[in-house]
């Protein structure tokens, strides 16, 4: 049985045991010893982080299923379907997610010296990485060819918008699970005009800049 098969099996124990070493121990036909869990998935909380990270990766893979379900709608509907499916993937493990995200953001410093060194710091990066990877997956699934346009501002703008929407919807889901999909739809509607707003803000900034340049020139500076 491979490590990835064990991880997939451990996902089935997440609703009852959370992202814990216990869930990992139950992944094999014969319950794994603590030493075995350490050997396969890491020491202490590192094993729990491994499980949670694998679960997040699986969630991104699972998003593909939304396209086959709602293949008829327009691009906006497809985006909604993709993000809504990702939110539904959270549901069985919802009560364990705050702890899991806290774990992912907790101190982690692996030293090659056999000395327990832990640097106290809170890391925002894992959370941002999670929402940006969901956004990237959604945008890629909507337009696989857009990967080649990775230098255009639209590429980043789209992903930033989707990441912000998904982050807000997921945070809302933690406090009000029943209303998360409605909240997601509202957010998508509200941010649909974002590119136009950004363009207008750019025009306004250019106008203000030119005005100041004229004032400075008229002063003989």
């Amino acid at each position: 049985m491979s490590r990835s098969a064990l991880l997939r099996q451990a996902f089935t124990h997440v609703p009852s045991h959370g992202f814990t070493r216990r869930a990992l121990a139950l992944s094999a036909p014969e319950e794994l010893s603590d030493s075995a869990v350490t050997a396969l998935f890491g020491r202490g909380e590192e094993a729990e982080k491994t499980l949670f990270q694998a679960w997040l990766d699986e969630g991104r893979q699972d998003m593909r299923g939304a396209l086959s379900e709602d293949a008829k709608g327009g691009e906006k509907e497809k985006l909604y379907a993709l993000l809504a499916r990702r939110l539904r993937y959270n549901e069985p493990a919802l009560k364990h997610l705050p702890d899991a995200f806290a774990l992912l953001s907790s101190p982690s410093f692996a030293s090659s010296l056999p000395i327990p060194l832990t640097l106290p710091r809170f890391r925002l990066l894992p959370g941002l990485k999670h929402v940006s990877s969901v956004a990237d997956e959604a945008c890629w699934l909507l337009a696989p060819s857009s990967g080649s346009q990775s230098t255009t501002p639209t590429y980043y703008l789209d992903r930033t918008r989707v990441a912000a929407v998904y982050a807000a919807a997921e945070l809302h889901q933690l406090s009000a699970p029943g209303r998360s999909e409605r909240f997601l739809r509202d957010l998508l509607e509200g941010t649909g005009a974002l590119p136009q707003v950004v363009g207008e803000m750019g025009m306004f900034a250019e106008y203000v800049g030119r005005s100041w340049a004229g004032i400075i020139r008229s002063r003989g500076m």
Partner: protein
Amino acid sequence: MNSLKSALRPRRLSRRRGHLLAGPSCRPLHTTPTRQDEPSTTHFGFKTVGTTDKEPMVQSVFSNVASKYDVMNDAMSLYTHRLWKDDFVSSLDPGRKGPLNCLDVAGGTGDIALRILDHAREKYADRETKVTMVDLNPEMLQEGRKRFKITMYHNTPQIDFHVANAQTLPEDIFPSNSADLYTIAFGIRNCTSIPEVLQSAYRVLKPGGVFACLEFSMPTNPLFRRVYDEYSFSIIPLLGTILASDRESYQYLVESIRKFPSQPEFAQMIRDAGFTTGEDKDGDGGAWRGLFGGIASIHSGVKVQ
């Protein structure tokens, strides 16, 4: 590890003899496949020798170094081998979930066995965990017995000693599916056939049991590797000459480390034997974890059925 060393005592030792931190209950390193009519060969340091020759040569090395083994380990590694062994055992955390039946192969002077028993007792008040020490070399095992006589474990069911070859652990003494934990520290590279040692380990472990190996490897940083090479080939044989009057054994030590498979290769060999390992990378959750920049590595695998 000591036991492995002991198991490798040679009848003839050509130019190079034994070394430190080597464990021994097996015949020497992996074999090179040859045509049917040619004898198969293996490595003894940088030398190529017949597979049947390596075991006695390694035996001889460890017989020579048995009495000075611990002193030389301290001198050569600047005491760091103790840190590595502490880390090795604490990462296995024996006793945390109840008593274990452990097999310490190439156990030699008992460094690992003693740490396992102490860890289980001091941290979890576990006096039921049992360690069976195995070594090919009776002299090394004798050093281990002597050492255990001054501990509380002497003459208790917690410790047992056997002279045996790691490649062919006898079924009557080491039944299949009987051990929870199989450790081998600084011993496997002295074996003639690493795959046979791994297969033997797989056989004796229970489903869910853990194979753990502490062994020298090569530093990954090129600059550090250069410094390490200089130290290995210049200082270690010199220390062997000064402290043990035995340059060749310590020359063999350095050479055998260079001939040992790289970390990814050894991880693949562990998987080929049937074990499940972590991701194919260095670090926590990986198939191996480098110590001191990769001078030594802890490899582990789990028998999952």
